[in-house]
């Protein structure tokens, strides 16, 4: 009975919070010309990996820019919020190794949120995390082997995943201890959902271009904020 009342109270509290919550939307743009991406030429020396690319080899993906100048893979988040992680109950995210590349290359999770790493390749990978705040891990994953589960205790930006068997394979995972973040899509657009009303500092972080911030106020109708990164 007590447990039911507690759950009911929590539900009402959450509902009240969400009642005023709104979305932050925006677009990330790139000004200037991004440097040319490079072909991942070492792939051709690996018979298993190169079999996935009978045509042209894939290239690095540091700057994913749409025809309209929208910049993908920018992590947008609220700054100055801590201890609000809902990661333990959030749906797991998946990081797949396919064709000896990571998919997606940039993603964001909450502390305590499960990140499942799959090996869809027919070769062995080592899944090696290189964090600054969390504990490092380095695990071997055989072809057809069981999925690996990762969770992170502490927030940190761009925690690197790499495979040292195939040293061109990288992914970066930003970890937050709150759910108010998004990764910009192929068109540069992002949406942070269900942000409670209030004044915040919004941060946009690109792995190559650094960080920009903006002060915003969320009202019932939400808020919009664009960012423009420039390559000098």
């Amino acid at each position, binding site marked *: 009975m007590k447990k039911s009342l507690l759950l009911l109270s929590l539900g009402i509290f959450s509902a009240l919070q969400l009642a005023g919550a709104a979305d932050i939307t925006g677009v990330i743009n790139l000004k200037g010309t991004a440097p040319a991406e490079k072909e991942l030429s070492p792939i051709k020396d690996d018979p298993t990996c190169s079999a996935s690319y009978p045509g042209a080899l894939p290239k690095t993906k540091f700057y994913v820019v749409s025809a309209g100048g929208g910049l993908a893979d920018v992590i947008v988040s609220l700054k100055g919020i801590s201890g609000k992680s809902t990661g333990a109950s959030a749906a797991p995210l998946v990081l797949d190794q396919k064709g000896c590349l990571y998919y997606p290359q940039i993603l964001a999770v909450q502390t305590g949120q499960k990140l499942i790493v799959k090996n869809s390749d027919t070769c062995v990978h080592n899944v*090696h995390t290189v964090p600054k705040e969390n504990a490092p891990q380095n695990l071997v994953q055989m072809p057809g082997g069981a999925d690996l589960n990762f969770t992170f205790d502490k927030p940190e930006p761009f925690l690197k995943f790499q495979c*040292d068997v195939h*040293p061109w394979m990288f992914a970066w995972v930003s970890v937050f201890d709150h759910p108010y973040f998004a990764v910009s899509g192929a068109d540069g657009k992002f949406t942070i959902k269900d942000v409670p009303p209030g004044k915040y500092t919004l941060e946009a972080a690109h792995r190559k271009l650094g960080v920009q911030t903006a002060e915003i106020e969320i009202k019932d109708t939400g808020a919009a904020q664009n960012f423009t990164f420039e390559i000098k």
Partner: protein
Amino acid sequence: MNNKYNPALFWFAVLNAVATFLLIGLGGLVTSHEAGMSVPDWPTSYGYNMFALPIKFWTGGAFFEHTHRLLASVVGLLTTILAVWLWLKDPRKWLTWLGIAAFLLVIAQGILGGLRVKWQLDWLGIPHGAVAQAFQVLTCAIALFTSRWWLDSSAEKQVAVPRGLRSHVLYVTILIFIQLLIAATMRHQHAGLAIPDFPLAYGKIWPSTSAEAVASYNAHRVEINNANPITAFQVNLQMAHRLVAYAIFLGVAAVAFLARKKLGGADGLTRLAWFWFALLALQIVLGAATVWWNKAADVTTLHVMVGASALLTGALWWMMAERRTQRAK
């Protein structure tokens, strides 16, 4: 036991020295291919006994890391045999202790390499690289001390090498070792080239290392294998590496000219000094090529091996000069 030349012992010591040199080359390939962590477990490999890892797993970075471990085991075995052999057969106590030192150093080096994997500490690669160079000098010194040239007391009396020249060679050799430490620190940043051009640096004689400049360098870098961003420290470190390289080159050139002047052009040590000078010239070309070819693994590894050879040549030159001077007295 008498202090006589033992060809079997000498050639075994040479074998150990050659194996060590190859091991340094293979270690260089591991780092050049960013493969140091490709086999996450140690002393097992992918859960297998290291010596029973199925060949199908010897692929990509794991090929370099695994073969490095196997060759390291061979060098460990050779060094152990050499230490026991010296203990049993060589009457020189100091050489016996040198053999034991080599044995302890190869064990320490193996553990250091293992801990770098187990503890996932990139910086442990720096002392691992430094100990490798010191160990190589030690194995070659043992080969020299067991050689006929070193032991033959009836060798004709040779010209003493002036103290100033011997000291100069020692200082340059120490400078080369410091240069190898700088190089190991650069390589274990796993950040690729901190400066992408040569002989200039970002188009200047001395590049800016302001926060804005470093941010701009990183924005324009498109690296395939070395994805860490560079820092001002790394830019300054590479500039230091270049400056020390020029200093070493001039130092070795001075050795060659002084040796010719003091010992004569036909002297063995003069010839060795010119060989040393040629090595340094080659090393500078390889350093430039490392930059121009964006740290291509084979070029970079050749740069590592020629660097190791330069250290070794200086150390052996100094030891031979000391021996000759001792004999001349």
